[in-house]
């Protein structure tokens, strides 16, 4: 197959990854983070050994990024890998050469946590979760624990399935003659409140039980409920920040959808698409029920093979177009920087990525206390939200480049509290200095 690993080890970026390397810039790091808090102590040396074992099983993560004449590409990285203390702000910029010895991810630890921060070009949330689960399982095995079987825990000596490394976008590409429309731009929270180069986190933890109860009242899923809550919060923030209703813009939220199940793919590289859900507030204020209606309608209406195929084809057709394919990287790079917003960030106001409830095998379940998932925000959309569930709790992490402004987070979380969902918050913001 075209995108199989070539004999010299060169690995082309997958179709949704090609946008990430050229668009890395201040406030756009394209890093995301997954972390597990454990009830056992983490010993760095043992973690490093576990990482070395596991990395052999995931050769497509042990790569470095290079710039070619036409495209960026991956090459196997044989430099020594390292683990790093988790001290800095999350989702920080990772220099592709100096950052982590050429690796595009960093494994971080504190006394009771193992975390991975990874460049989005390498994989998406699902791929990183499999990697982290396998890493922690291996770490626990090295600590002398028995870890049961789990489809998302790969043993270091198990054979690699060639499908893991495939670019599923290429496999499920069908040449379609569909019209690819542009969306108008959505409302964005303004920059004037002061930005920070460090990603600020506000984390909210709530019981999945509570969320289930309230979403079943509305007959929707938890994701749909949270999407509606965030849209509603964003609608209110726009009403507060924009005085004149004539200057309102649509409020939209991007929801990454793991499409492996839809298409039946086992790839561990990027295979996620974004469904953009929105309300046009220029038509008037939407009540929560109206928003929920829109969310259900738009989300369910877009997550099916037909609609998703259209997006897959758009991704692939774009890359295959001769004018793009044969344009030198020196031109592609700046153009991607300038045009990426109009296809991506500009058409929505924020993002919520919900990995869902994560289950663990026997032997790991008792040890993992908490899971966190962080997305990096961007210059256009200053606040993103990432959710992950484990052990009966759902953690929503709001990552933001606003130095002090937390109105959106407050609006979203107090709405949950008012609806009777107890919320527990934590932060890395220097609250005192505000």
């Amino acid at each position, binding site marked *: 197959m075209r995108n199989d690993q070539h004999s010299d080890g060169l690995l082309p970026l997958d179709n949704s990854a090609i946008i990430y390397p050229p*668009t*890395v*810039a*201040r*406030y*756009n*790091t394209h890093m995301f983070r997954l972390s597990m808090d454990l009830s056992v102590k983490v010993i760095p040396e043992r973690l490093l050994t576990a990482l070395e074992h596991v990395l052999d099983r995931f050769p497509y993560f042990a790569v470095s990024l290079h710039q070619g004449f036409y495209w960026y590409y991956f090459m196997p990285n044989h430099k020594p890998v390292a683990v790093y*203390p*988790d*001290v*800095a*702000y*999350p989702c*920080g*910029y990772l*220099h592709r050469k*100096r*950052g982590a010895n050429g690796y595009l991810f960093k494994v971080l630890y*504190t*006394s*009771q946590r193992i975390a991975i921060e990874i460049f989005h070009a390498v994989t998406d949330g699902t791929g990183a979760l499999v990697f982290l689960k396998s890493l922690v399982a291996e770490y626990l095995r090295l600590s002398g624990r028995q870890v049961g079987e789990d489809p998302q825990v790969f043993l270091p000596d198990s054979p690699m399935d060639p499908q893991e490394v495939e670019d599923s976008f290429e496999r499920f590409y069908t040449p379609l003659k569909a019209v690819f429309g542009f969306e108008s731009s959505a409302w964005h929270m303004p920059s004037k409140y002061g930005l920070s*180069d*460090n990603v600020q*986190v*506000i*984390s*909210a933890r709530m019981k999945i039980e509570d969320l289930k109860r309230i979403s079943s009242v509305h007959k929707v899923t938890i994701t749909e409920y949270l999407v509606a809550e965030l849209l509603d919060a964003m609608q209110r923030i726009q009403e507060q920040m924009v005085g004149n209703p004539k200057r309102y813009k649509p409020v939209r939220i991007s929801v990454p959808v793991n499409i492996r199940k839809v298409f039946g793919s086992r790839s561990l590289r990027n295979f996620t698409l974004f469904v953009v859900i929105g309300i046009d507030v220029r038509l008037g204020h939407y009540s929560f029920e109206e928003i929920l209606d829109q969310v259900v309608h738009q989300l369910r209406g877009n997550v099916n093979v037909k609609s998703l195929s259209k997006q897959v084809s758009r991704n692939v057709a774009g890359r295959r177009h001769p004018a793009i394919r044969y344009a030198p990287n*020196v*031109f592609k*790079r*700046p*153009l*991607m*920087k*300038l045009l*990426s*917003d109009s296809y991506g960030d500009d058409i929505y106001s924020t993002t919520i990525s919900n990995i869902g409830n994560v289950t663990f095998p026997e032997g790991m379940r008792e040890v993992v206390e908490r899971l966190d998932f962080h997305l990096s925000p961007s*210059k256009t959309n200053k606040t993103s939200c990432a959710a992950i569930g484990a052990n009966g709790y759902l953690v929503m992490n709001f990552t933001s480049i606003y130095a002090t402004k*937390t109105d959106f*987070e*407050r609006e979203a*979380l*107090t709405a949950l*509290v*008012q609806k009777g969902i*107890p*919320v*527990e*918050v*934590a*932060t*890395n*913001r*220097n*609250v*005192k200095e*505000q």
Partner: protein
Amino acid sequence: MAYCVRCGVKLESGATECPLCSMEVQAPVEVIGQPGIPLFPNDNTDGPFEHPKLDKNRKGVIELVIAFMAIAVITLIITAFALGASFSPWLPIGCVILGGSYLLVGLFVKPTYQHLATWFAAITIVLLFIIDISDRKVGWSAYANLSIVLFWLIAVAPWTVQKRNRIYGYVLAGIAVAVYLLAIDALAGNALSWSVTIALPTYGISLVASSFLLLRIRFGKPTITDTVMSLILVVCWGVVAADFFHLRTIASPRLLSWSSSVFIVAVCIMIFLTLNLTLRRVRHYFNNRVV
């Protein structure tokens, strides 16, 4: 573990302020709890924290400009090799680089009016000078560059100083205009002629006329009508003065020639402004307030 009374959220152990609304927690120490290991690290002291300096769009434009500049320069060099001695690439290369630097300056320097205007003025002066000097003597560029310097002194220099010292900037700009008039006259060759006899006196009269308006703006509250009329008045006096001093230079017996009608307009406007200033009824008659 306390709760925020405003947001209703539970705070992490040891938190003394709500991260959502910055409200201070009013609770006994036992309730607040001891700060544990922070859930999220936020330490940057561990070595220099590296991150890109430019945001995405700015970086994109810079890269694009540099790419196009590089292509243009390479094309010119290849052309020069192909054509041999009949084509010198240096002037066009200079223009490409300077043209590109116009764009780059806008992206690199601090995006304030003073910085941008200063850089643009400097680059333009260099560009004009280079184009002019390609035949090995300075000609027309001296006039253009003098004008650019004048523009900078009037429109940029006053804004580079602090606000309370700005008056000196204005004085400097006022003097600069006078010097400019003299310099242009001197450049034209021979001794100073029209600048001393016509331009400077006219300029002086205009300054005096506008100082009335400036004083009113500084110490009173002129209406839009007032300001517009005053500006017209300044122009009128300038025109009348120019005519007057021109006639003196050619030793004409007439006091004013074609500008006598302008003089009448100026007198009318002066009467109007005076009445408007002194009589409330006139002021009310011409008022045009909406709210």
